[in-house]
């Protein structure tokens, strides 16, 4: 078994460079399919429904890119990846992009040779504990058993936090969110820690969500965003500006309801016109056609709509916009201008 993994890695490494050189955009167009790496299942972010159809906040980015590039939001092969397998999957070319609550860090950007194309969710690491345990603060966790997902920034932050506060803990490493959930609910660990958004999503699936509290401490910065392989700038631009189009659309008031109308003829907002291809030809610069952004926004609406539908306050996940509000509303979500 080991040997096959090794040969596989060798073979994967052998094709990687040629892939990057050939241009992912052309490959995706030629294949007629976007291979998008997502998580194995986090409700609201990326999960397959009863019919096997993927949906969620991260999945929406994949769909927008597929719509922009291929003209069809369903021409996607979703590849579920764990915290551990995601980077190998991207580096080896098994997926064209990752949209999987992945934190933008220095070493991932520089040393692991990826390009983060932006941030679609500003997050931080939190702790969840059963109410019955009676802990009020993460600093009270001396000696606690903590469930963590391996291969994440979570386990590094956790080590730092406990060391900085001079308290001890027992880590229980786990591969996927669902296993972590099972262990946590059975009491095999006292607390579960991951990104606060992940905690909210996990808690939303519990039978009695109110029996569990999220502790007040947020111990890290976790800017989550989609990423691509380093070195293929054209493809990076496509994914980056697709996300920016979704964000700008919210700022400019383009929604799923009015996008078709706005794209049919030039209106009086020049930036909207440029984005939707009724004025100039921004798409050509990207190697796409004029209506790429129109299609991307057409899938599920703008950033705000995607947020509210998948993880917003009206959903079981119930996240407030907070840091993820538009900059015009005091948040950090901000797209460079389309010009």
């Amino acid at each position, binding site marked *: *078994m080991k040997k096959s993994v090794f*040969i596989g890695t060798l073979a994967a490494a052998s094709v990687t460079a040629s892939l990057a050189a050939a241009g992912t955009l052309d490959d995706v167009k030629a294949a007629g399919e976007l291979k998008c790496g997502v998580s194995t299942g986090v409700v609201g972010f990326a999960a397959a429904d009863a019919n096997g159809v993927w949906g969620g906040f991260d999945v929406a980015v994949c769909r927008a890119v597929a719509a922009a590039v291929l003209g069809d939001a369903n021409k996607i092969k979703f590849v579920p990846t764990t915290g*551990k397998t995601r980077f190998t999957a991207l580096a080896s070319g098994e997926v064209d992009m990752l949209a999987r609550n992945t934190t933008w860090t220095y070493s991932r950007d520089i040393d692991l040779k990826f390009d983060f194309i932006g941030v679609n969710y500003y997050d931080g690491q939190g702790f969840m504990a059963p109410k019955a345990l009676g802990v009020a603060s993460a600093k009270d966790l001396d000696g606690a058993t903590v469930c963590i997902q391996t291969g994440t920034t979570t386990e590094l932050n956790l080590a730092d936090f406990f060391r900085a506060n001079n308290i001890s803990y027992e880590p229980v490493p786990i591969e996927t969110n669902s296993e972590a959930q099972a262990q946590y609910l059975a*009491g095999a660990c006292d607390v579960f820690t991951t990104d606060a958004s992940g905690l909210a999503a996990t808690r939303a699936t519990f039978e009695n969500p109110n029996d569990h509290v999220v502790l007040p401490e947020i111990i890290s910065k976790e800017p989550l965003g989609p990423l691509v392989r380093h070195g293929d700038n054209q493809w990076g631009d496509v994914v980056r500006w697709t996300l920016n189009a979704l964000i700008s659309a919210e700022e400019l008031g383009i929604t799923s309801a009015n996008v078709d109308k706005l794209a049919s003829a030039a209106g009086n907002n020049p930036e909207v016109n440029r984005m939707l291809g009724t004025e100039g030809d921004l798409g050509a610069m990207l190697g796409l056609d004029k209506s790429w952004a129109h299609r991307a926004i057409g899938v599920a609406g703008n950033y705000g709509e995607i947020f509210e539908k998948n993880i917003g306050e009206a959903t079981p996940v119930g996240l407030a916009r907070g840091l993820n509000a538009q900059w015009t509303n005091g948040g950090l979500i901000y797209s460079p201008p389309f010009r």
Partner: protein
Amino acid sequence: MSTITDPVQGGFRISMLLYDTRYRSMTIQVIALIGFLLAIGWLFGNAAQNLAALGKPLNFSFLGDTAGYDINQRLIEYNSQMTHGRAAVVGLLNTLLVAVLGCITATVIGVLVGIMRLSKNWIISKIMTVYIETFRNVPVLLWIIMTMAIFIEVFPKPSDFRGADAVASMKLFESVAVTNRGIFIPSPVFGSGSMAVIAVFILSIVGIFVFGRWAHKRQDETGQILPTFWIKLGIFFIPSIIVFYVMGQPISLEYPELKGFNFKGGFHMRNSLIALWFALSLYTAAFIAETVRSGIQAVSKGQTEAAAALGLRPGRITSLVVLPQALRVIIPPMISQYMNLTKNSSLAIAVGYMDITGTLGGVTLNQTGREMESLMILMAIYLTISLTISTVMNVYNERVKLRER
């Protein structure tokens, strides 16, 4: 066909490499070898070149960088400020721990089950057959995950032990706590004077060996059989116990106690270790049992009958006549069972056991992005372990082999 046996007189022609049967197979082998080496070389060269193009040329210096992550089960001192190399060693020791424990229990269970499968008692032999078939025919990963799931769901959590109306309680005179996080058992605390007890204990073990040899020799000379088992048992316990009391009971036990979130004190055998150990042992034991059974059946019935005719009791027939001969058939396949168990232990991460695949091949690989380097080291390590097992077992095999006189 004098050409085949006589040395060639006329000179050597190139075409002979192909047409002369003396050279042909050699030629083919050399060509195949060159082709194979070229293929490997191409694969490696290509990988190295592409890694370089990717900006990730082979580089092992990450082993000296700070690891940054914690490991729950450590046989040596380790914390998150130590290096990835150190974390790899911690993982390696965990691999070796579960492999050694697994091989021992798998052998004991396997031999017992193998013998019982041949039992004349219908129920026992059928139960053993069912056990062997169910374990051999389900992938070991499922056994590992299932054991862990049962562990987590069935046993009580530490908080169940708390309070006046606790739902769970400690076993064996309040000394052992069985929880869904693992089993907590008392650990010895060595006070002053405990060295004497330990020294006497070691001496007793040496004594047992010396006595065994002496008894053997005596039996060879006089033909009398001593009740060696009971005498050895006596040597094992009595001197140490006497010294223990003479020295004023210097060794005491530290009992696990519920403190805060968890039990503290004593040994903590984590559920991941137990689940992995248990599943690997039972799985491999099923294969060993079959090996033992076939080994025993390979000893011809005449041997048993002859021994019985000489008046040996059934127990002695098994231990003196059948097993020594069966061993010769059993040991070679046993080597591969031990290697399988060791390699299967790399499934550890499924239950969160931090073996070498979990540390070096898991977290380190992931945090540093050094897939190629990590996998190369991993392969070298598993290869070394396997070759060591096979060398040791081959030496043993040489010793029990039929010596032809």
